[in-house]
């Protein structure tokens, strides 16, 4: 054993194995709880009781469902492509799991004389790694749709993948201004850049009244949500669309496509698709916290100083997971053309404009007047944009009706 450890590079490997085991255990446990919590919260919002049979408050319900799916037959249609059919659920699950590696869940702890950062791996290209895992995740959906050899999954798969790739662009572009402000692609650096208080921001320096006002808000943490809120909203919308959840759950629209790309899946393979979606929800929530809400940052009393950051991180992530559930209980599903309209004509141009605005504001040597001009132009553009709106929203004329009135 020692020989192997030395061969692999010494204590790096021991730390890596410990981190890996802990991370997977934590992530899977969280996912199980999230599935149960969603059912419980949705039930509450719909004035039902929800799962209440297994364990206190039904908390073991997900585990029971999982065990049940283990013992269910797992078959595939005759027309399916054997290997691709088997590969698809793995590709739906694994990238979401792997994306967790770059999420910092806390500060560091010290065991003996060794410092252990509470992150699986602090990559110098962390943000790109997150995007890379997202782009691999598309394959799970595409392949499931194609490999089933059936019509509903094929249509659902193409629809889902077109949706995912459209919003992946917006997701990627919404991260650029954050990277620009932090000056690093590493998630640890981005969290570190959000330490401190709002009043430290140099933007208001030199302006008499604003400087005083900024001083008043010195208790507010310097999270990117304040300066980067447009990027945050783009990230959140694109993130929800990436997970294929309501109101962007068109790929699984049961009234149109049965179950979409996983119609032909059963047993444990279906469970992988199902769990993959929830892991994805947890990852998007965790990334939103890391990028815009200061990660594990928060008040840190002297009692057990290392546990507070983890507590704050879990708490903030939990709020976002709750938001996901809340949206599902509240929002009706988007129509497909509206979905594409939102992605390509609103989110992508908006994120490009916002990147440029962030760039101007962050440039040293650009005068205050120049910044004001940029904000002024931006304001006019936004007003014009909002005023123009979408004819199909205001006029309620769908293109299909127009066609009926035309030739016939």
């Amino acid at each position, binding site marked *: 054993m020692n020989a192997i450890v030395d*061969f*692999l*590079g010494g204590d790096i490997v021991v730390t890596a194995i410990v981190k890996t085991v802990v991370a997977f255990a934590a992530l899977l446990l969280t996912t199980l709880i999230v599935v149960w919590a969603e059912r419980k919260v949705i039930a509450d919002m719909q004035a039902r009781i929800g799962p209440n049979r297994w364990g206190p408050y039904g908390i073991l319900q997900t585990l029971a469902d999982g065990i049940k799916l283990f013992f269910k037959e797992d078959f595939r249609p005759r027309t399916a*492509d054997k*290997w*691709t059919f088997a*590969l698809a659920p793995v590709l739906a699950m694994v990238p979401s799991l792997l994306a967790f590696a770059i999420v910092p869940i806390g500060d560091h702890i010290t065991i003996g004389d060794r410092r252990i950062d509470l992150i699986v791996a602090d*990559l*110098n*290209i962390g943000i*790109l*790694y997150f*995007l*890379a895992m*997202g*782009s*691999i995740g*598309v*394959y799970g959906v*595409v*392949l499931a*749709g*194609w*490999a089933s050899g059936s019509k509903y999954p*094929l249509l659902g*798969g*193409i629809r889902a*993948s077109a949706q995912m*790739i459209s919003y992946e662009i917006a997701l990627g572009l919404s991260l650029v201004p954050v990277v620009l402000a932090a000056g690093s*692609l590493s998630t640890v650096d981005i969290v570190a850049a959000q330490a401190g208080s709002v009043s430290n921001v140099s933007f208001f320096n030199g302006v008499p009244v604003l400087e005083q006002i900024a001083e008043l808000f010195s208790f507010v943490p310097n999270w990117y949500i304040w300066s980067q809120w447009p990027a945050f909203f783009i990230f959140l919308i694109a993130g929800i669309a990436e997970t294929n959840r309501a109101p962007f759950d068109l790929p699984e629209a049961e009234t149109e496509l049965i179950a979409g790309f996983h119609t032909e899946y059963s047993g444990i393979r279906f469970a992988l698709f199902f769990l993959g979606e929830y892991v994805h929800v947890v990852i998007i929530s965790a990334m939103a916290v890391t990028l815009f809400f200061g990660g594990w940052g928060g008040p840190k009393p002297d009692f057990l100083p290392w546990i507070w950051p983890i507590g704050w991180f879990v708490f903030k992530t939990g709020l976002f997971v709750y938001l996901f559930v809340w949206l599902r209980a509240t929002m009706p599903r988007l129509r497909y053309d509206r979905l594409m309209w939102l992605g390509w004509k609103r989110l992508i141009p908006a994120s490009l404009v916002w990147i440029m605005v962030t760039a101007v504001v962050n440039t040293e040597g650009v005068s205050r007047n120049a910044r004001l001009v940029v904000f002024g132009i931006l304001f006019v553009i936004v007003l014009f944009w909002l005023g123009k709106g979408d004819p199909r929203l205001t006029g309620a004329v*769908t293109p*299909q*009706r127009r*066609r*009926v009135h035309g030739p*016939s």
Partner: protein
Amino acid sequence: MNIEVVVFGVSFVVALGSSIAMLFAKNAVHVALFLVAAQVALALTFLLQGAYFIAAVQIIVYAGAIMVLFLFVVMLLGVDRREALIEPLSGQRTIAVGLGALLAAEIVYVAVKGTEFVIGGRGEDALVTINEDPGNVKALARALFSDYLLPFEATSVLLVVAIVGVMVLARRMGHEGFLRETTEDEGSEGAETDAEVPA
């Protein structure tokens, strides 16, 4: 013998194996998947050499975006359809052999010249030292936005050409009935449902 050699061996075997498998696979989707495997293995070799950014780009753009485009084309055309044995481009094979020979010559040339093409100096340690001091992405970006500015801006023009090209192509397909067939179906479906509702 250390871990780097082992990882290199694995990625080498995967890249070569899946490339060969790609050539002999019958199914178009399998071909695309073997290509993805080769791309990921290539990304691994980039990673081994300390080219972190290129490794990420290899996965995001090649394995992620371009291969999804390939799969879309395959799914739209349908795999089961009999392949036409007539070459749509006459002399396709001859051109392919010529271009292949050119590429091989290029690879041999670069392999012989070796580290001369490394940004920021020659020698094995060049990339390692660059990764230490300004950082991988920073060094690459500095080179890209100063010395290689023109190619960078030319990329955008190239991408625009691709966009315009695909729109013209899709439009023509529409005129020949490929696009029309499906939209007319959708249209009549919509007309039926709308007709039931008194306007």
